[in-house]
């Protein structure tokens, strides 16, 4: 399959990229790893007149802790996140989400920035970023601005990015001690989107939850924050009944539709089960402090 013709530019700096976006506006599309955009172009579901490739802009592949956050450059690859010792140690849910995206060959080029900016409700990072309360940094003609992941995700394939803005980095707040995270995904086979998936991050003081983040993948028009389940958990002592009730509340927050991956009721049950599993795994990590 051959996409329609387009122009291709490789800016060497962010201002240069932004100038092209300002000039060409909605006709332009930013190219990161291309693992979602290029298939769409081949199917002619997307036909940008010009591609602005970020690959030669220095500094966008960052993946490091800095100023109290894990800073993920827009061009950081999924394969880098899944193998990074710091990510596996302190942000295990993020490493897990990266490791179940598509397949290893796709992950060699797919980027975390692209995964978020594409805003497909079936993508895995949006829900995990909701759980980790990430911030998204965008740069446009008027400089940089930072927004919560909640505000960044607007709707299906729609983000808060203006046509002349570039997602520059994602900042995941460095978790407190005794914090654990996990991402649980049910997929029919490698490379398929999730039937449903759940990302969680919790913090314990003693046996009591002091914070909880829960995000749901592919059970609504965009990734969903399970707010009722989150607020239920905070202040509760960890036991099986509490985890079960949180899982039930998360399933209530899901808005699944019946499709080829299963009926809506089934998916709601999958969310309940996966929330329970992800919470147990996150609790264990909070208590032992490691991914494996």
């Amino acid at each position, binding site marked *: 399959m051959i996409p329609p*013709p387009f122009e291709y530019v490789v800016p060497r700096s962010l201002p240069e990229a932004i100038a092209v976006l300002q000039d060409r506006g909605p006709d332009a599309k930013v190219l990161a790893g*291309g*693992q979602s955009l*290029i298939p769409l172009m081949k199917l002619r579901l997307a036909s940008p007149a010009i591609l602005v490739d970020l690959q030669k802009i220095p500094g966008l592949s960052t993946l490091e802790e800095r100023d109290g956050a894990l800073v993920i450059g827009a061009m950081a690859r999924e394969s880098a996140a899944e193998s990074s010792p710091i990510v596996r140690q302190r942000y295990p849910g993020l490493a897990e989400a990266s490791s179940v995206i598509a*397949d290893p*060959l*796709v992950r060699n080029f797919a980027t975390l920035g692209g995964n978020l900016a594409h805003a497909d409700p079936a993508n895995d990072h949006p829900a995990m970023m909701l759980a980790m309360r990430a911030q998204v940094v965008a740069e446009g003609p008027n400089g940089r601005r930072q927004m919560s992941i909640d505000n960044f995700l607007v709707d299906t394939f729609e983000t808060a990015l203006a046509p002349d803005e570039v997602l520059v980095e994602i900042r995941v707040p460095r978790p407190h001690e005794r914090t654990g995270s996990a991402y649980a995904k049910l997929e029919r086979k*490698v*490379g398929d989107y999730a039937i449903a998936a759940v990302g969680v991050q919790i913090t314990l003081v003693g046996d009591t939850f002091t914070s909880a983040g829960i995000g749901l993948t592919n059970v609504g028009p965009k990734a969903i924050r399970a707010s009722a389940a989150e607020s239920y958990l905070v202040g509760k002592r960890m036991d099986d009944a509490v985890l079960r009730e949180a899982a039930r509340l998360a399933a209530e927050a899901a808005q699944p539709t019946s499709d080829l991956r299963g009926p809506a009721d089934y998916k709601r049950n999958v969310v309940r089960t996966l929330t329970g599993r992800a919470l147990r795994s996150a609790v264990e990590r909070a208590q032992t402090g490691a991914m494996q």
Partner: protein
Amino acid sequence: MITQSVTLTINGQPFTAQVEPRLLLVHFLREVAGLTGTHIGCDTTSCGACTVLVNGVPAKSCTMFAVQVDGAEIRTVEGLEQNGELHPVQEGFFQEHGLQCGFCTPGMMMTAVALLGQNPDPSEDEIRRAISGNLCRCTGYVNIVKSIQYAGRKMRTAQTQPVPAAASAEGGQP
């Protein structure tokens, strides 16, 4: 028609062509450079028949434009054989019957070459995960795994003779 100059080093040889930005790497390799060993299977980023190494990293060449990899080192299945001698991975697929129809084989082998470069002694589980983006419609995965294990043994012992299945890493020690 707007074209751009793209220079790739393909299997050690520089190759330059004027191409449209929309030309996919797999079409560049097959139709511009004439290297048809890289196959087009699903054309939808699923099957991995088009896998080549881009600067040593296995990639689905149907899912990148040639202009994106301008300046890169590309390795295709044609670059595995050296001086008339099969690459250990090719020998493994030959010895262990790692192919039936052969369509997935070039991509499968390129993924295997990259895996063994990073992890000379992968477990069966690691091999199966590494090739999870390469589909074999003959479902010949058991022998594909054996072929990659054969290649791993051969590369670890660096012997030139076929390695019997029973030989382990110790077999090649002087």
